[in-house]
């Protein structure tokens, strides 16, 4: 187990750590802005999981017998002529999907922050305990 083989599991662990820290912020922090910061951390963690799953994956989606015969991918037949490239290339589907996810998440955060400003103007506080107490009364 060298640092080179541990790179992908460490990326997964980083993503898990980001999701855990974000969940802690969403559940236990009192300030409304820090709750929204927690949601951004969860979003970053989930994007990182998807991208890390596609790292070096063109070789991994074929069987070992095919790898011994020199086949690098079932889908991408042309890659047989470039085995070194196929051993290093990433799977392209997650990066194409996460690109959309990042753009959508930024617009969602803009809406969340606009609603937070409206809440501050109405209740004159950013603390969740104060806002919920006034809602209950």
């Amino acid at each position: 187990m060298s640092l080179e083989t541990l790179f992908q599991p460490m990326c997964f662990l980083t993503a898990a750590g980001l999701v855990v820290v974000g969940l802690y912020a969403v559940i236990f922090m009192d300030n409304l802005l820090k709750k929204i910061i927690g949601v951004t951390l969860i979003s970053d963690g989930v994007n990182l999981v998807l991208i890390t799953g596609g790292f070096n994956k063109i070789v991994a989606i074929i069987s070992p017998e095919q790898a011994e015969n020199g086949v690098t991918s079932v889908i991408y037949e042309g890659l047989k002529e470039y085995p070194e490239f196929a051993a290093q290339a990433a799977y392209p589907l997650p990066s194409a999907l996460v690109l959309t996810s990042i753009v959508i998440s930024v617009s969602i955060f803009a809406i969340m922050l606009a609603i937070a400003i409206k809440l501050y103007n109405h209740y004159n506080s950013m603390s969740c305990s104060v806002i919920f107490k006034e809602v209950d009364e």
Partner: protein
Amino acid sequence: MIPGYMLMGYIFMFTALFGSVLALIQRDLMKSVILIGLEGLAVAFLFQTLRAPDVGITQAILGAALLPGIFAITVYKTRREEE
């Protein structure tokens, strides 16, 4: 011998985790917003080392520049200290 981009990747993983924890323990919300920009930048460089450069560029623009900008506007419109 470990390649250079993997060493950079380990540094960026540490930066992302440490920056996210530091952003949540600040009392001053503007410091928290700047640290969330640092975390987004670290995740952008991590995408680059994971061989997804298009996602890295988009994350560097949106997650490290635009998102802290609108967070800073929110802090400017509301109060700066956490009560």
